[in-house]
Structures are given as C-alpha cells and as structure tokens.
C-alpha cells in the first residue's frame, strides 16, 4: 500500500513522518506547481473553491507516481470541505484511476473500526510513537514559523530568514527522533530570537492574518503573501496553525470561546469554516493594537464571504484597517503585490 495525502503548507513533513513511522510507504504528491493547478482546474467543477482544485491536482500527480491509497479529511458541513472527498473520489474514478480512499470523518469509534479495516492491525505502541514523532515535528514547525513571520521584518540581509527556515525544515524532515527534533527546534529558536536588529521600514508595523485555513497555510495559493509582507518589513501574526487547529478540534484547548465572545457584537452565530474566527480574531487583533488585518479566502468561499461582508463594520467599529483578498486560479502576483504595498503604505502613514 502506497499512501498519499493532499498538501497543506509545511504539514507534509509531519504527516509523512506519521505514516513512515507506522511502517507504510508514503508517496507525497510533488510540491504544488503550476502543473498541479492546471490539472486540478481542468478536472474540477468550474465553481468549486480553490483548495478543491489543488487537492485534486495533488491526488492526480500522486496517483500517477504510484500511490494507491488517498487519505483525506471529511466532515459534515456546512463548509464545502466536508464534501470534497465524496466528489473528488467520483471524479477520479470517472477518470479511470484505481485507488482506495480513507476519509477521516468525525467519530472516534467508527474511525478506529475503519482504520483496522483499511490498514490492518498495527500495534498500539507503534501508533503512539508515530503520533508522538509527528506531533513534535508539527509543533516544532509551527513554533519556528511563528518566529519567522516576525523576524522577516528585521533581517539584516534580504532572504536570510527564508534560508534559515528552509534549512530548519530540511533538518526536521530528515531526522526521525523526537529528541533531535527538539534539539533542532531549540537551536533555531535561539538563532531567530537573537535577531533583534533594526526594522527594515524604520518602524514596527504589525499585521494580523485571518481567513480560511488552507489559503493562510499554503504559500502556493496565497502567492506567498507572508513572504511579501516580510519583504515589505511588516511583522505578521496569526492564530491559524495546524497544531492550534488540532488542539481546538480535539477540545484540548478552547480558543473558540474567546473568539466567539470577541465576535459576538458583529457576528452572533457559527457560520462554518473559519468565518467566526475571522471576525473574532480581527476584533482581538484590533484590541491588541495591531496596525492592520488581512483576510485571505478562496473565491466563492461561503464562510469567508459572510466574514468579508461584516468586516467593514468591524473595521469601522474597532478602528482597524482591513484588506480582503479572494484567490482563484487567475490571481496574479503583480496585482496582489501592488495592493499589498498600497495597504502597507497606508498603515505606515496612519502610524507616523
């Protein structure tokens, strides 16, 4: 059995470790490229949202490379993501691919049974150690990336932080021991924390990133917006991280309450996806004294459309500039860059 799964930011490192440690062969899809996008767009429904198309492209490329087992998330709405797997499976079968698909639906017991059916018996100790390794890798990546988002604004040499992060990722990917993961994490944390040079722009500007999780986490689809902001000398902060999402999903943390309370003045209901998080976090960032907020979402995304229609009221009520980007397969680099530069200039003028 050759396992594959869709890309989502740098999480490929952790997911790969999980299945390798369990003793499976993993065939991760090649990094998302123009070709992935084109494949996805060609075979997806025209008005499906962008993550659907990229996922489908990932699957096709991985299946072409010999994978025969797709692992995918599920759910029960109201966001479209919960229905992705059902449609993608039908499309791939219609195209003649032969594979099996494991969809992670909510519900612990049904999952345990299904896992046994699909993957055969695996010892509990092995599962535990695999999960521990993957989890530590994910934590390390998220922790270091949090620093990367801040430190790009004050690097001495252009591209220095990006290079550091690339090295870090490679090292994490190569190692298979929890101790070493922790050591690498400590090492890079110290290097990054020591970067306390002057800000590129002369003044600190801080922007909060909110929106739909896939668009925020995956640099290919958001046209590396975080990198661009870093180049412009802006510190970026966000609450959307894979580990953070998982902790909340498993009820080990409860940011939801905080977010709901912050959002309640403007949006008084759960709306699926990350709609309420977008509103709640914008309010929280405003109250924390951020200079601006940027919302990212795929074109036609239902929860983010709700959020984006309410955001102007939040912006007015809390006094924080907000910029919204909806991405689809036609989004172009230059357009995004121009709008970003104008937005950052505006923030700067407001501050000085």
């Amino acid at each position, binding site marked *: 059995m050759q396992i594959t799964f869709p890309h989502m930011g740098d999480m490929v490192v952790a997911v790969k470790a999980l299945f390798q440690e369990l003793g499976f062969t993993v065939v991760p899809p090649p990094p998302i490229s123009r070709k992935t996008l084109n494949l996805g767009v060609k075979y997806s*429904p*025209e*008005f*499906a*949202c962008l993550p*659907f198309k990229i996922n489908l492209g990932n699957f096709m490329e991985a299946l072409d490379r010999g994978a025969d087992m797709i692992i995918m998330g*599920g759910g*029960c*709405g*109201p*966001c*479209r993501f*919960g*229905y*992705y797997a*059902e*449609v993608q499976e*039908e*499309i791939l079968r*219609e195209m003649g691919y032969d594979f099996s698909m494991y969809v992670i639906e909510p519900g612990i017991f049904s999952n345990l049974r299904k896992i046994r059916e699909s993957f055969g018996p695996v010892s509990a100790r092995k599962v535990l150690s695999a999960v521990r390794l993957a989890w530590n890798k994910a934590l390390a990546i998220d922790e270091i990336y949090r620093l990367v988002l801040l430190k790009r604004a004050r690097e001495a040499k252009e591209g220095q932080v990006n290079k550091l992060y690339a090295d870090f990722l490679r090292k994490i990917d190569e190692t298979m021991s929890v101790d070493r993961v922790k050591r690498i994490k400590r090492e890079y944390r110290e290097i990054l924390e020591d970067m306390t040079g002057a800000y590129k722009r002369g003044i600190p500007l801080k922007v909060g990133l909110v929106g739909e999780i896939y668009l925020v986490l995956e640099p290919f689809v958001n046209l590396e917006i975080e990198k661009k902001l870093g180049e412009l000398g802006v510190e970026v902060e966000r609450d959307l991280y894979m580990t953070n999402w998982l902790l909340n999903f498993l009820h080990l943390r409860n940011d939801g309450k905080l977010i709901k309370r912050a959002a309640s003045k*403007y*949006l*008084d*209901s*759960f*709306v*699926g*996806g990350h*709609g309420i998080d977008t509103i709640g976090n914008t309010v929280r960032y405003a109250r924390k004294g951020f200079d601006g907020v940027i919302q990212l979402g795929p*074109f*036609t*995304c*239902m*929860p983010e*459309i*709700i959020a*984006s*229609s*309410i955001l*102007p*009221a*939040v912006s007015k009520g809390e006094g924080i500039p907000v910029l919204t980007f*909806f991405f689809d397969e036609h989004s172009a680099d230059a357009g995004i860059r121009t709008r970003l530069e104008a937005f950052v200039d505006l923030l700067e003028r407001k501050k000085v």
Partner: protein
Amino acid sequence: MKIGIPRALMYHYYYPAWQAFFRELGLTVLLSPVTNKGILDQGVKAAVDDICLPFKVYYGHVLSLRDKVDYLFVPRFISLGKYNFICPKFMGLPDMLRANIEGLPELIDPVIDLRRGIFPWRQVAYKIGRKFSKNIWEIEKAYRRARDSYRHFLQLQREGYETEEAMLLTSRRGKIPVGDREFAAGRESGSDSHKGRAGDKARGIKLGLVGHSYLLNDAYLSMRIVERLRKMEARVFTVEMLAEEVLEKAARRQGKPAFWYFNRQIMGAAYHLFQEKEIDGLVQVTAFGCGPDSLVRELIDIRGKRIGMPILNINLDEHSGEAGILTRLEAFVDLIERRRRKCR
C-alpha cells in the same frame, strides 16, 4: 404594526406559514414587490461582490421594505433536520444585513435549528410570539394555523401546483378544494387551459427541472424557465413535486449524501428521476457563486453521464441574458425530441 417579509430566499419555502402566523397574531404582513430590475440593481450595489445571486436579490428586497415597516422578519436558519445544514450564508444573514445596510428597522431573527429540542418549530414560534402577545393560547393558535397552512401548501405542491399558485391558494383557503387533481394534472402538463391537452399528445417530452426553489420560482431571476419549458409543452417535474421521504431515499444512493438540506433534496430528486426513468432529460439551474451547487451539480452530472441522460446546465448571475437562456432551452428540447424520434 407592520412586519416586512422579503420576497426572496426562504420566502419561497415557508411564506404560507409565516403569513398565517403573523396575521393570527394581529400584525400586518407586508411583502416586498416581485423581483424587478430596480430591486436587483439595489441589491447588487448593497451586497459584497462575491456573494451569490439570490442573496444579492435578498438585499434588494430588504432595501425596498426598509422604510415601510416596523419589523423585518429575517430568521437565522441553521439546520432543517438531523445531520443537515443549510448554506452557511443563511446563518450569518441577519449579521450581514446589519453590517451592510443602515437604518434597518428592528430585525426579528429567531434561530431556526431543527437539530435541537423536541418541538423546534413550536419553540421558535413561542419565542417570536412572546414579543407580540402575552397570551399563550393566542400564540399556540397562531402556531397551529401556521402549521396547517404549511401542510396545505406542501400538499398542493406535491399535487403539481406551482409554488406561487400554491401560496395563493393557501392564503385563500376554502375556495378551491384540495385534491382537485384534474386541475393539478392540467398544470403539470403545462397547458394554460387547465384541462385537456395532456402531455403525450403534442411534444410530450418529460423533463426534470432541479434547482433551489428561491431561484426557480423567482420569475425575474430564473427568466421564467419553468413557464418557458411548459410553453414548449414539456412535462416538467420539480423537486417540490416529490415527497420528502422519496427524496431522502434517493439521495442515499450516494455513499455520502450532501449535508446541505436543499441540495440533498435536489440530489434526491435528480437520482429519483434518473432511476424511475420518468424523464427524457434534466435541466439543472444553479446560481453563480453558490457553494453547495458547485459540488452537487458535478455529482449529478457524473451520474447522468453514466446512464446517458442528457443534462442542460444553466448557471444564472446578474448578467444572464434572456435570449441566451431561451436559445439554450429550445436547443435542448429539440435535441431530446430528435433523440426520442430516433429511438422509436
């Protein structure tokens, strides 16, 4: 006191119940006018660009009622049954209106979540009712009146009455007895004189027509697709003509049926019509930017293709032209006719 109900979205599913309920409580119900260009343009201007067509129209209807009423009825729909959701935009609707439209009257925005509680509809009714009446019996009476009206309305739809007609008949109940099947059958076959001209005589092809009721039954938005098909003397079967159990059973043919209530029904209707081989072709009407439609449509397309069913997909937005739609409908009907002749 006047309560305004926008003639859009859930109006097309629940208006008879709402009308009966508020009337019984002693309110004057004011309905916005039938969708027209002015309403659409206003809505397009007030709503965000990215939202789907039916919601833009809803904004327009709200604007047309804004200064004329004391209250505006904008329920927050969350779920219409176990394991079901509806499109999330309904969940944020009252908040979106408040953020985008200034000078709104007080919104009556009860949460409607049928996953919770034993008698969820009754609970909602009491919650709204308490605002307008102190008398519990009066509220209960209003609730029962609403429920009866709604059942009557559904019954009429099953029998083949169009939604608008069924609404009219429900509100003038008593004049035409329910179960006048001949009348209904006449409508179903699409002739304007209700009796006689049965479907098989003239062209007599049978078409399935699926799509959200708030799109198909808005004559302006859908460019009178239903009427046009009937004029071409096709027998048209819609989602509303099928009973909920039938829809649910058919939808379960999909391993994991859609979890959006209305799209699950659409899916069920399409699969049911495919299976029973009652139809010669399927017309699918979707709204530009509709999230659930974008995925469910694909599944229906794939299944249709497997059994060789001709499918016409029409995607509507504020720029759709009437001539374009008509041409495509005519071409589709011609194609099916030719196919039928060949088969004979």
